[in-house]
């Protein structure tokens, strides 16, 4: 039995302790905005927030997800999230878009800790998030614009 707080809602779920948060979010709760890209903390597609900080949900067991979890579906309620979403659209960041929920979640976490990051700080914070379409330069520009 796991109790989870996701996007402000409480859930009591009958799932194994070791089940990664990613699969609870996707398959059990049906929130499909958080993506599976590697399952091994290599790509960042599965990034969500735990108490406002970016974590990889694919390697976080559900039993370790104690606190407030936020997924991409709710990040528009956050002023930083909103600004980033707008910058993403203004600059046409997404190509296929598959990595972008993870990118935005990580970028929100970054801006929360560092409201005006320099280019190198952005690269340092964001290099764990892969984008096979190669939108990196636009992501940097969008974070600087947000």
């Amino acid at each position: 039995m796991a109790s989870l707080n996701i996007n402000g809602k409480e859930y009591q779920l009958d799932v194994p302790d070791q089940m990664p948060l990613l699969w609870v979010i996707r398959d059990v709760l049906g929130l499909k905005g958080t993506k599976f890209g590697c399952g091994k903390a290599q790509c960042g597609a599965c990034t969500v927030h735990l108490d406002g900080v970016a974590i990889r949900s694919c390697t976080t067991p559900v039993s370790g997800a104690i606190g407030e979890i936020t997924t991409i579906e709710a990040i528009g309620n956050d002023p930083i999230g909103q600004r980033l979403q707008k910058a993403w659209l203004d600059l046409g960041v997404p190509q296929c878009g598959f990595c972008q929920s993870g990118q935005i979640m990580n970028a929100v976490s970054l801006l929360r800790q560092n409201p005006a990051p320099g280019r190198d700080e952005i690269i340092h914070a964001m290099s764990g998030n892969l984008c096979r379409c190669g939108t990196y330069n636009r992501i940097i520009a969008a974070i600087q614009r947000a």
Partner: protein
Amino acid sequence: MESGPKDRLQIANVSRRRFLTGLAGAAALVIAARWDLVETAEKRKYGAEGMPGGYTDNPNVFIHIDPDGTVTVVNHRSEMGQGIRTSNAMVIADELGADWDRVRVKQAEGDHSVYGNQYTEASRSMRQWFDPLRRAGAAARQMLEQAAADRWQVRLSEVKTGVHEVWHEQSGRKLGFGELAEAARTLEVPDPASLILREDHELRFIGRESGLINGVLETSRPKAIDGEGIVSGTAVYGADVPFDNPLYAVIARPPVYGAELGRFHESDALNVPGVLKVVRIEGAGLPAAFNPLGGLAVVATNTWAAMQGRKALKIHWDYGPAEDNRSYTSSAYREILEARAQIPGEVIRKEGNFSKAMEGAHQRISATYYMPHLAQTPMEPPVATARVQKGNAEIWAPTQNPQATRTKVAERLGLDVTNVTVNVTLLGGAFGRKAKPDFAIEAAAIAQWFEGRPVTLQWTREDDLQHGYYQTVSLDHLEAGLDERGRATAWLHRSLSPSTMSLLKADFEHKSKVEQGMGFNTTPFDIPAILLENPPATAHVRIGWIRSVYNLPHAWAIQSFAHELAIAAGKDHRAFLLEMLGEDRKISNRSVGDTYNYDEDPAIYFIDTGRIRGVIDRVAAESGWGKEMPRGRGLGLAFHHSFGSYAAVVFDVEVSEGGSLTIHRADIAFDCGPQANPERIRSQLEGACIMGIGVALLNEVSFENGVAQQDNFDRYRIPRMNNAPREIRIHLVENPDEPMGGVGEPGLPPVAPALVNAIYAATGKRIRRLPVGDQLKG
């Protein structure tokens, strides 16, 4: 015109009767046809007309207008990041006169008898559909105008279309699109030949620059169709379709290509909580074509349980049928290719007398280049959902090839094609991997065990890297002679790579005509003696293809070698390239033995060396080619033409004493003829730049005893943000009167050689084996 999407059957009849001139029949050839072109090219049709399913420009197929004025554009090509859902809608909306805010896009299901060809690859969505979709938009506009003229009892010529409304000049009367839709849809579709397309100055979207241009946001951009869904997590990719009570599955596949399922205990998996069933998937044997590899599926109530169940299985594989592939080791194979590259191979193209020209040469240069297997690794691994119910199958998949998916699923389940529906989701990247329908067939093969229940078959990243359709490994050996004035007089290129055709015919050891035509026999240099040869190379894994396909190794070798020759000749690289290209001329693809030409008409699409010069000149000017560079820093150049387009790239790089590389800037000049949506052309080229950096520096799938040695992004490395150039600058060359070229792929081939040439300029170190990896250290 339709007032809603409901009457599709009727539409199909209309389009069949009047517009589908290109129905090609034989659905089984959907995929194979394109890889099997031989010398029958004389009888071929070209462009959209020559594709399976042909094309249609019937407005009733693509445009629906609701009474409230909402315009729904049906998009029949797969969206995989190139922006086609937005760009196709823009083309139609521009001709139609629609207000962009009132345009919606509906994705077509797989059925090329209704929509025309849907196979989204070879950079041809816009190249082949720009004209038909413009005509569809123009026809719909004219039908709305006719409906208004009828209503007002005036002549058609007195009626004009504004934005989302039609008006009568003399009386000033107006009617909105929604008010006219009902009447317009009953009208006869105008003859395509009679349509008047909009003048250039009337266009609002087509060819208009918008959005971010080289790092500066000067203009706003019409909103991307899927943008909001993407940034809010509601966009629907392959694994995101909501279902009641779905099941999830993963498959244990044979570690070596061709091995088969041996002993196992299904209880090992069934003991894992959540696992419901273990299902044997029949493989197709060798060669596998586009069929599943076979193996054992584990079906569970969630993806993780399925993965745990698979992990618990101890499967003994039967390697008997895979004996030959089990000895496949990349390092040894490379030595085989190197040895074969010393021996003359099948002659692909011959002009002049190479050996004689070499004898007379003042300088003789030779070099051999290697590019390993690559994996496409779209961020979304292959995934598909299938539901089999009462003799019908429904598929939801991120597929580049919905028609083949439909045909192959029907074949596998023994159903009639009409009993199979293929819904195309967004593709989380594809790059050629999702052109193959194997993963949807797997999902269907599992779902038939669960009548009425949707089953999502998920590939993990490990599955993707270990059981892929790998881009070919390639070895290219080149020799050239220079005269006393440093001009190239002799050129030999022996290119060895297993063929994609080995998927269909195991002993196919030479490049197919399609593969030759991807930058090999189309070499554009004006050299008196040219000899192109193709010694044999055997495939030991599934050879698929990645974005830009065989252009990738060919451009890498040719553009690297051309730079080596320039250095040997003591000439500026750019000047040397222009000298080798000779006078501007249009080379007929046929004249160099290329019967592929990306399926385009050789009387329209040429190898145009003037356009090559154009992109070289432009990129040179924009990058400051020829300027003094500080120590440890250098500029590198390369060009390539493919898919009807021309690209040249200059990199500005710096390499430290310790061998660490900084990419300061990439400049890319690009000429694709007319530009439909420049904003997405730029983003595709930026993406190609990043992907090409990966090809140059990082990507490699290597095999030991038939098993891929990379299984996730820790070992199969692709570019991260810290590999991106500080700046990428895209320079679009205006050439609106030329035939339209492709966009998704042609930017990629010159990237790796330009980067490696820049590394040479910075360090004097020549890299001939990709990836660069740590070759710069020490």
